């Protein structure tokens, strides 16, 4: 028994096993999020939402997955097959991979990389590749337009996203997400979202754009380019794209919680749950995900030029100014 455990804890095997667990959790998260999305939208729109499969409709995701598994996977005749089929995977794997460096609770982090934040930035940019592959591989005008929009949007919003992280990195003095959480302390007024409020809002907005949610869902734009880069997908490939989108939405919430809202730290010191602090992490992440959905069902969509204006003319200047403010404050206030 002990040898087996030792074997499992040996480095490459432990990493692979944990990635398996993460993959399982992320796929489940995606399924739960589809359900949450449908229920949340239903309550916003004065509807009931899915309520037929299982108690209170809770088994709806299972039924959806079953349906998508049994559906024929239609490939357009002119599609570039390898690129077309590779795109969903190129979108899903990065979205699942970044979860490896997110600390769930004091002891639960798969890999405490000392460059965790850089890892997050680097891996999420790969998602843009998947969008371009999907749009190019489908050989359809609508897909191509969606892919061009997606590439431009994701790459442009990387800039404010990265800039908004710098304040946190400066305050912590470390690139490791575990260090970031530890540095924030166990009371909500010591978390970074207060001193870094403009950065937090920029990160949130850029994050919305990064995961292609309303009001930044231009690559999909269902009323003009009917689904954009994913218009030609069906069955499991489509499900994989959806899973990737939901996984990256969950990821963006988790990372913003980790960086700005104290990660697994309890909001007040006496609420410390010890090893069960992942509950706080889960609650905060769910809250952020709910705001994502709330925005999704309340706001219309921006246009491409307005999106670029917002990114380059508003978000980037705000982050740059606050970067200098943070640096100045760190010089003036000692011991920070």
């Amino acid at each position, binding site marked *: 028994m002990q040898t087996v455990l030792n074997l499992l804890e040996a480095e490459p095997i432990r990493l692979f096993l944990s990635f398996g667990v993460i993959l399982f959790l992320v796929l489940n998260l995606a399924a739960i999020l589809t359900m949450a999305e449908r229920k949340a939208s239903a309550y916003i729109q004065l509807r009931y939402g899915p309520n037929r499969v299982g108690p209170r409709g809770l088994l709806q995701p299972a039924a959806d997955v079953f349906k998508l598994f049994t559906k024929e996977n239609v490939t357009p005749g002119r599609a570039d097959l390898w690129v077309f089929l590779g795109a969903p995977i190129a979108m899903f794997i990065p979205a699942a991979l970044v979860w490896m460096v997110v600390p769930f609770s004091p002891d639960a982090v798969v890999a405490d990389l000392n460059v965790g934040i850089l890892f997050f930035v680097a891996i999420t940019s790969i998602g843009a590749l998947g969008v371009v592959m999907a749009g190019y591989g489908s050989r359809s005008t609508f897909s191509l337009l969606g892919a061009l929009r997606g590439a431009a949007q994701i790459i442009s919003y990387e800039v404010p996203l990265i800039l908004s992280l710098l304040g946190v990195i400066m305050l912590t003095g470390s690139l490791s997400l575990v260090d970031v959480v530890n540095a924030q302390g166990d009371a909500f007024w010591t978390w970074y979202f207060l001193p870094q409020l403009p950065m937090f809002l920029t990160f949130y907005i850029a994050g919305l754009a990064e995961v292609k949610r309303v009001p930044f869902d231009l690559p999909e734009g269902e009323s003009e380019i*009917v689904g954009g880069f994913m218009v030609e997908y069906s069955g499991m490939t489509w499900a994989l794209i959806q899973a990737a989108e939901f996984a990256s939405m969950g990821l963006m919430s988790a990372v913003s919680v980790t960086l700005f809202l104290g990660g697994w730290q309890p909001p007040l010191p006496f609420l410390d749950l010890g090893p069960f602090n992942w509950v706080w992490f889960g609650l905060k992440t769910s809250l952020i995900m709910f705001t994502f959905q709330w925005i999704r069902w309340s706001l219309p969509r921006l*246009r491409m030029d307005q999106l670029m204006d917002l990114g380059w003319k508003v978000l980037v200047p705000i982050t740059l100014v606050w970067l200098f403010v943070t640096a100045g404050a760190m010089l003036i206030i000692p011991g920070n």
Partner: protein
Amino acid sequence: MLSEERRVEQQSALTQPAAGRLAAPDVRDEFGLETIDMSMGPQHPAMHGLLRLILELDGETVVRCDPVMGYLHRCQEKIAENRMYPAVIPLTDRLDYFANMHNEHGYVLAVEDQLDVEIPPRAEYIRVLMCELMRLASHIPSIGFLMLELGAFTPILYAFRERERIQTIFEAVTGARMMFHYIRIGGVKADLPPDIPQQIWDYIEGLEARFQSDFVDLIQDNEIFISRTRGVGKMTGEKALEMGLTGPPLRCTGVDFDIRRDYPYSIYPELEFDVITDTAGDVEASYRVRIAECLQSIRLIKQCLEKMPEGAVMGDLGRRLRPKEGDGFGRVESPRGEFAVHIVSDGSDTPYRVHYRDPSFCNMQLLQEVVPGHYLPDIMPIMGLIDPVSGGWDK
């Protein structure tokens, strides 16, 4: 309307498969970049039914936009020639299926033009009451459609909640939710059920209370809504008149024209209402015009209910309906603009010729003129400005 060259091009677009056309375009700018041809529709979620737009795109900018209609053509005018006059009314219901009452009213006015029949005042009041309810049931969803096309999904469901309640009233009055066959030559089919005026009154009061929060506060001051609609589809009043626009698309450019006031019919002269105009001439202005017209409709409905006289609801028509020889003409202000019907009667019991002037069809002019130069996503709010209905532009 189209040059000969365009027409040939459009013909080839209709007959050739898309693949051949996509490989062919040879329009290059100074950088040697080509434009893309794109066929949007007829199966497209934002095309208000079955409309096909042949687009030429330079990046995301639209260079050319040719609407192709006819996917829902049902020979309405020809069928009408083989039916007796009263039997054409259910066909008019199928024209603009968001303004059925107005279609019936327009047709009935055209026939009554050639008949010596006195319409009882109660019937006139019921007609106007129904038409104004219909205007609400069309304007409110059209605001929702505009938001849907901008990417916000929620307002359409609020809008359809209102439409559903109005349809429930229609069902109680006429027996049908959409295809009413209620306004008849000489009057209306049946009197209002006794509890309906109170029901309408209650509904209207409730709507007034909800209107501000559900359709104005949610939409009007939203920064994204403003940036997507202000200045989009902008046109001047002269341009709009040149294109023959009517209804909200015309009034939003500042032209003060409303059939209900300028060519009064039915009992509109006896009722008080304002003709809403706006000066901006863009999508946002058309939204404001529609919002304000909803409030005017509420005002008209209240007046109808207060002033409604007692009495018969059907005039004396005689046994067989034979309008006298000549031309009959009726025009009404439908939610989308001027709906006019021209009837040629040869003295028999079937019309010799029926022609409908449908605002959805005429307002479609705007696409070709206004869309080029806009971005691709701007086509959707401009469609929302026109708010065409498939059954209207294809008769």
